[in-house]
């Protein structure tokens, strides 16, 4: 079999699984979980040759081209491509997905829609793989949306819970906002360059067929898609809510893969962005990285803490890409995928054991759930950027790129503050979580008593992922495979050393603060919160962004829709109707017309016409001399008109 076949198998195996599962899942033995997990491993295995190929030759490029539809000169291509970046993404996605599927077998055990769950999850994997493989804008948009659909279905998987149903809807609609921007960007590119294919678009831009402000705007439009999908400020609001979905879903979709799709896409279409566009992106990313971190400090829902952490890390990735750290940003995407998936799964394990997500009801789980604790510890260390865990390498590179950028453009100093401050916050909230959950005395004895370590089907994926969370950063393999598609400016020489120092310092400080506060108790979290009550409230309420949306967008919009409906009913439909009523009113004043409004129904032009008919009727008095007078009058009028 040639490589293309492997790629296709990797891509379509999950789809096949999903299709079979959706129709037959309930009738299969064990509701088909073996099938879905199986196809994922098939997919993973099939992706290995690809990885080998790119590993052997980093400049390797495979294209599978076809036409989706052709209308004479216009056509939409259907193409897949494999290069270093896709090779990695393909493998990583299928790998993580496979283990999360496996984990789900334990986690979702006994759910009434067990089979449906796996179908959705399979379908998601298919969409994500398709997104990674797409070689043109149109196709990436298609998979982009399909990913959104799977996300919607999985967030709202427990749709009986209104919160879950709401969260799914919110995710989809917020994503749509971004998608529309993405689509407009695609339209702009198509209009200017006449193609959807990445290669040709890049060629066109390189040839200067599109440049200047238009390209900047186009780039920002495309980026808007990533803002939605990768939950950048200000479209980040859906991600925390998405935690209403089952935890493996959060791990796979809302940590490892789908949310990274935006980052991947920005990396994939890197040449589309102008330096001006990157500045905007950098600020958006920086804000996301920093502010999400601050919010994570105050949350008590274990998944939400991780979710805000994810937001923050996504900000980092984007920041890296925007400040010239092309490799760094994408590298962080991969390492983050491992350790964040791990953290979610571990959190899931905790939730599975305790049946609560509230950190205030946890504590002292270290002994009860050792595997979970140690794997999660590995994840947290990676997250905080402690060497030699994987996260250190990638995050350090990002901060390095950012500092380099700031040194070259001192007016953007704020970005550096965001980056370093974010790193500090990361250490702080990551270990706040660890300490609150696993150390100290159990705060809810009842729940603690029932807690137990998860079954192997769940812990094995934890361990596997932990291995990668620890080691994924080693060896410089990533740089070997992924190369920037454009020439990037090199930052000042000292930037990297400074970054190393600063990031280590920040992470260490963060962890130390957490330790002091939650283990040693030198600092009372409560007192700090009291001291800075307004700030705390602001953070606790996530900067009131949701509320702002509700008041500033959603409610006015709903009012608008109601207004339109009323307009439709009252004005447009009622217009002629009103004419009729008006005539009627006038005639009532005159007091000699008896309108009978048949059926009481609003009868459009009818009323006006009827009214006139009724007036004319009055002439028909029944007295024949009146008639003759009318006859004579008619003759006279005509004659007078003639004479005059």
């Amino acid at each position, binding site marked *: 079999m040639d490589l293309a076949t492997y790629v296709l198998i990797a891509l379509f195996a999950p789809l096949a699984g999903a299709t079979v599962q959706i129709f037959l899942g309930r009738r299969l033995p064990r509701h088909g979980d073996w099938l879905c997990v199986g196809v994922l491993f098939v997919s993973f295995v099939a992706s290995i040759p690809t990885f080998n190929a790119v590993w052997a030759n980093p400049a390797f490029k495979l294209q599978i081209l076809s036409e989706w539809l052709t209308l004479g000169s216009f056509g939409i291509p259907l193409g897949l491509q494999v290069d270093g970046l896709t090779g990695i993404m393909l493998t990583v996605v299928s790998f993580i997905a496979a283990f999360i599927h496996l984990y789900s077998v334990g986690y979702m055990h006994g759910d009434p829609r067990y089979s449906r769950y796996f179908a959705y999850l399979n379908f998601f994997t298919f969409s994500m793989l398709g997104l990674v493989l797409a070689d043109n804008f149109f196709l990436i948009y298609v998979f982009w949306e399909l990913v959104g659909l799977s996300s919607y279905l999985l967030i709202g998987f427990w749709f009986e819970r209104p919160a879950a149903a709401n969260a799914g809807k919110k995710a989809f609609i917020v994503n749509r906002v971004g998608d529309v921007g993405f689509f407009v960007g695609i339209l702009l590119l198509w209009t200017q360059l006449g193609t959807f294919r990445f290669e040709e678009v890049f060629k066109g831009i390189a040839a200067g067929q599109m440049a200047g402000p238009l390209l900047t705007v186009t780039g920002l439009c495309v980026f808007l898609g990533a803002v939605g999908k990768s939950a950048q400020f200000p479209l980040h609001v859906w991600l925390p809510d998405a935690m209403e979905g089952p935890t493996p879903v959060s791990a796979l979709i809302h940590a490892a893969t789908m949310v990274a799709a935006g980052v991947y896409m920005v990396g994939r279409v890197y040449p589309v962005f102008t330096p001006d566009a990157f500045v905007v992106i950098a600020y958006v990313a920086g804000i996301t990285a920093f502010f999400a971190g601050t919010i994570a400090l105050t949350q008590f829902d274990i998944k939400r803490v991780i979710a805000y952490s994810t937001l923050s890390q996504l900000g980092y990735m984007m920041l890296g890409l925007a400040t010239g750290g092309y490799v760094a940003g994408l590298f962080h995407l991969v390492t983050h995928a491992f350790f964040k998936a791990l953290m979610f799964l571990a959190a899931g394990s905790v939730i599975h054991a305790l049946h609560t997500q509230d950190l205030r009801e946890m504590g002292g789980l270290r002994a009860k759930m050792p595997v979970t604790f140690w794997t999660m510890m590995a994840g947290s260390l990676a997250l905080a950027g402690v060497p030699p865990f994987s996260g250190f390498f990638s995050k350090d590179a990002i901060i390095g790129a950012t500092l380099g950028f700031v040194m070259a453009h001192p007016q953007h100093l704020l970005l550096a503050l965001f980056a370093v401050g974010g790193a500090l916050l990361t250490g702080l909230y990551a270990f706040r979580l660890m300490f609150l959950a696993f150390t100290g005395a159990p705060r809810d004895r009842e729940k603690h008593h029932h807690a137990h370590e998860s079954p192997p089907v769940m812990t094995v994926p934890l361990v596997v992922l932990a291995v990668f969370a620890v080691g994924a950063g080693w060896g410089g393999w990533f740089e070997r495979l992924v190369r920037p598609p454009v020439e990037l400016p090199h930052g000042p020489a000292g930037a990297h050393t400074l970054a190393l120092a600063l990031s280590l310092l920040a992470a260490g400080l963060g962890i130390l603060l957490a330790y002091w506060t939650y283990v040693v108790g030198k600092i009372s979290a409560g007192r700090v919160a009291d001291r800075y009550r307004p700030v705390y409230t602001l953070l606790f309420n996530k900067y009131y962004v949701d509320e702002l949306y509700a008041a500033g967008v959603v409610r006015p919009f709903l009012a608008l829709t109601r207004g339109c409906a009323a307009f439709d009913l009252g004005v447009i439909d009622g217009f002629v109707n009103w004419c009729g009523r008006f005539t009627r009113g006038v005639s009532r004043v005159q007091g000699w017309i008896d309108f009978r409004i048949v059926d009481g129904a609003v009868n459009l032009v009818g009323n006006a016409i009827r009214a006139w008919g009724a007036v004319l009727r009055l002439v028909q008095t029944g007295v024949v*001399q*009146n008639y003759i*007078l009318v006859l*004579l*009058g008619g*003759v*006279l009028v005509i004659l007078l008109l003639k*004479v005059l």
Partner: protein
Amino acid sequence: MQIPAEAIVFYALTAITVLSGLVVVTSRKLVHSAFALVFAFSGLAGYYVLLSADFLAAAQVLIYVGGILILILFAVMLTHRIESLDIRSETLQLLPAIAGCGAIVVLMLLAVYRTPWAVKEPQVLTQTAQSIGSLFMTDYLLPFEVASVHLLIALVGAVIIAGKRGGQ
């Protein structure tokens, strides 16, 4: 310059005709109207004589005065009890009628006076009765026959409609 006799007769006839016409139109008593109509018709017959339409004048007297008027009087009697011969004929929509009829007279006179009628020297006609008679048998044969059928229809119809309610 002598005043032609024709003029004297014309104006006399006009006085009779128009005045009795006025009476017909305005009299509150129906019977008065009916008798005034006799004078009006007679005046018209006079005109016809002046216009040397002697046969027509005779027909006018015979048919109108002798026929139609009697019919009208009969109708008046039939539709009112004898003791209340003081049959009043009320009026309605007086003002519009005055305005309308006035306007129509004005407009018609306007039309009449604006038109250059191709007036010729009147030829002297004699023996119109015979000529008309032969016309009825030749050029006007069809109208004549149609008119007779028409009269028959009217006659039969009048009998049916005026007769006592049908049957049983």
